[in-house]
């Protein structure tokens, strides 16, 4: 009898444990989501290292309130000193942003490295390392006049040779090859003047020389013949940078401690004495740490966290800043799949996917309408483009019939654990037009990336960043030449889309300086793309920052936290 009772008790306990586990732990799924991010960044291809993704979105009323308070406070006189503790679950591979994209590297990277220029909230270039700059009338050269008082952390002056070295290193190594592809040479004969010679006009080059995209690294340290990708000085407490803060402690995957660089070239900056970047592998640790008051600032690791802290008076939760990142959530349709090779079929799918519903339900309302591949705050966003926001199932069925697919078909959809809510939502949407989506859960991010890059999928969910200028972040998804044969590259032209007319328009836009003329070209290109419907645009989420009210002048520029925190200060 005892044994029996024991057995029952055991079973009872195990079920209870299951339920309890259900209530408490959140580890595994998120852990895998997390891995995704980590690997993404680790793999180097991961500009869209995006697990702060889901958080994004249209700023609610709460933000307004938070920001109001913020502004009021920041009207006080800045106070120098203090330590800012920043929490992240993104572990950088190293600090050398000339060879590595992504948030993980860019957050510490923009603190330890300066850039030639800086873009303000209105996308206007401002002086940073370069006091002034001019673009030749023919657009074939850009001249940067550097400050004469700028030095690296080891005391060596920052010269045009360093600028030349940084640009050419980036051109050869950075995943965004479009940034400096037209650069033919950099003339550094005058140590304070760098002349960038271009093979064609390249308006995106100014954006490409801002923090987050081009750090200036010391030529005298990195130009020693070693492979720059694996250079021993890319990370560590002996890192020599050009920015407002210098590295004093570097524990990979754990913490980075930065200290004010006293000889920084802007007088009286930075205000902060110290920045501690605490790297926590688990997003839940970030949430708990914020809740516990351990951190001054963090990027919200999930929508649930955003919601939680929006209701918490102790924190300012704001989606301001980071416009240039321009993340768009979308579904890639693989044009190599026979059923998806006709535009009608893709249009039908685009119509059947309930984009507004996705933003409302899956993104918890933290996402805004974004109907093209250009993000909706950009001057190049075509709000009037053909779109599939209206969910007209009869029309979708008609289109399928035109494509000869009214008998229905099946689509293979690889998804990581973090992508499941979207995948399930889309599966349900497409069932309504007789399309069966077979969700295939893949164990981790690299597996998913390999499948999508290699083209072994029919439909998939991803998030792609605009990176400030369409030349950098938009063209890559549509350019015929960017269809890279397997094993391929993730976030290249993974849909295998090709339209010569679109290519011609994008190429012309890339060399057009006049913003309006350029916008017109992008309007036309995105219109054509939308008619072909290789991609279903779901929405544009924004990353939320969670801060204590003590943080003044938070980094809310176009690059968000990927900007130098020179003006950040702490009130008490």
């Amino acid at each position: 009898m005892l044994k029996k009772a024991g057995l029952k008790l055991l079973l009872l306990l195990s079920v209870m444990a299951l339920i309890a586990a259900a209530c408490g732990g959140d580890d595994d799924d998120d852990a895998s989501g997390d891995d995704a991010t980590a690997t993404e960044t680790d793999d180097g291809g991961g500009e869209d290292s995006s697990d702060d993704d889901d958080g994004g979105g249209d700023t609610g009323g709460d933000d307004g309130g938070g920001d109001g308070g913020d502004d009021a406070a920041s009207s006080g006189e800045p106070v120098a000193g203090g330590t800012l503790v920043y929490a992240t679950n993104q572990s950088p591979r190293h600090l050398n942003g000339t060879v590595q994209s992504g948030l993980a590297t860019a957050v510490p990277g923009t603190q330890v490295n300066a850039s030639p220029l800086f873009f303000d909230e209105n996308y206007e270039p401002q002086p940073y390392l370069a006091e002034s700059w001019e673009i030749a009338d023919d657009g074939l050269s850009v001249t940067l006049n550097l400050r004469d008082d700028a030095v690296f952390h080891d005391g060596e002056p920052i010269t045009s040779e360093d600028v030349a070295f940084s640009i050419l290193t980036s051109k050869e190594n950075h995943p965004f090859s479009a940034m400096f592809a037209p650069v033919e040479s950099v003339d550094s004969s005058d140590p304070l003047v760098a002349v960038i010679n271009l093979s064609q006009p390249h308006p995106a080059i100014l954006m490409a020389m801002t923090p987050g995209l081009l750090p200036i690294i010391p030529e005298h340290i990195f130009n020693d013949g070693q492979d720059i990708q694996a250079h021993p000085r890319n990370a560590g407490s002996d890192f020599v940078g050009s920015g407002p803060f210098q590295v004093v402690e570097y524990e990979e995957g754990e913490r980075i401690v930065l200290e004010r660089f006293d000889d920084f070239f802007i007088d009286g900056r930075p205000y902060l004495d110290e920045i501690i970047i605490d790297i926590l592998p688990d997003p839940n640790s970030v949430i708990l740490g914020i809740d516990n008051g351990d951190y001054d600032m963090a990027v919200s690791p999930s929508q649930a966290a955003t919601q939680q802290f929006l209701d918490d008076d102790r924190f300012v939760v704001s989606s301001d800043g980071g416009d240039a990142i321009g993340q768009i959530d979308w579904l890639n349709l693989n044009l190599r799949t026979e059923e998806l090779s006709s535009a009608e079929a893709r249009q039908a799918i685009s119509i059947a996917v309930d984009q507004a519903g996705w933003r409302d339900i899956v993104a918890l309302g933290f996402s805004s309408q974004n109907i093209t591949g250009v993000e909706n705050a950009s001057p190049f966003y075509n709000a009037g483009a053909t779109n599939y926001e209206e969910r007209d199932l009869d029309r979708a069925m008609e289109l399928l019939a035109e494509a000869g697919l009214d008998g229905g078909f099946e689509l293979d959809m690889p998804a990581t654990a973090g992508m499941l809510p979207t995948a399930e939502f889309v599966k349900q949407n497409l069932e309504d037009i007789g399309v069966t989506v077979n969700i295939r859960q893949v164990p981790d991010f690299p597996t998913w990336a390999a499948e999508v890059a290699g083209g072994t999928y029919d439909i998939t969910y991803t998030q792609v960043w605009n990176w400030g200028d369409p030349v950098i972040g938009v063209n890559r998804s549509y350019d015929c030449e960017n269809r890279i044969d397997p094993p391929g590259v993730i976030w290249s032209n993974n849909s295998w889309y090709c339209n010569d007319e679109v290519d011609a328009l994008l190429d012309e836009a890339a060399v057009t300086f006049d913003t309006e003329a350029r916008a017109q070209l992008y309007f036309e290109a995105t219109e054509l793309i939308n008619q072909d419907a290789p991609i279903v645009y779901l929405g544009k989420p924004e990353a939320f920052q969670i801060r204590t009210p003590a943080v003044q002048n938070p980094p809310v520029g176009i690059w968000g936290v990927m900007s130098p925190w020179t003006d950040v200060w702490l009130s008490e």
Partner: protein
Amino acid sequence: MTGIFVDQGAVDALGSDDREPSSGGPWRLFVRNRAAVFGLFLLIGILVMTFIVPIWYVKDPGDLVARPHLRPGAEGAPLLGTDNLGRDILAIIVYGGRTTLRVAAGAAVLIVFVGVTIGSLAGYYGGRVDAALMRFTEFFQVLPGLLFAIVVVALFEPSFWVITFAIGTIAWPGIARLTRAEFLRLKNLEFVKAARAIGATDFRIITRVILPNAMPTLIVSTTLIMGSAILFEAGLAFLGLADVNSASWGLAIGRGREFFTINWWAVTFPGLAIFFTVLGLSLVGDGLQDALNPRLRGR
């Protein structure tokens, strides 16, 4: 239920049965055990819910029927509320039960088939065959169960067959050892010798003479194994290793846990479904134990 007792005749015909005469048939013993009857009712209830109710409650458990996170009883909400995407939780429980029970039943069949085959061969032949098969069994026995299942499911893609296979692989050694023990006990008894003496083949002796006598023990542990198979399936699904194309109880819990602070019902009701199923199986298992092995009563 009585089908499993049919072999009694064959056993009796061959002579000795090592059981004492009991006070009434197994069924009477079973119904005298109130807990077991309660368990049986639970199981019948679950079976009705998963296989009969759908006849009237025609739903697609994946349908987004209402706003997300509607609590039970809220306006426009289905009976048990909705989950994070606005799916009907009652539909998930009703239809998800099929997946869960199918995996559990599939795994149990696999476990019993492999376990009984290996156990009976080892027990019957003994010697080197026994040594080899038992080392093989031990190899699986020492693997940490859930961990091994996770590895198997993660290596392949989580589909019905992979999950069933993974659960089957980790749980068969218990049955194998149990079968072997029964065979060791039974193989030297008079009626087996008699069968051998009249020239029965090994196959016949194993399947027709010894196995029916080992059945009661095996039936009881099979019932309990189904319970743990359900827990395994739920555990795997909870960890994100489920076939996401078909609803299941574990999957529902796994999906819902992220939102538990704002949506307890999406986790609790599927959890209760698992709870009552496993409880029912365990009570019935105990009842069968008492009914089929009266000598064990009171132990």
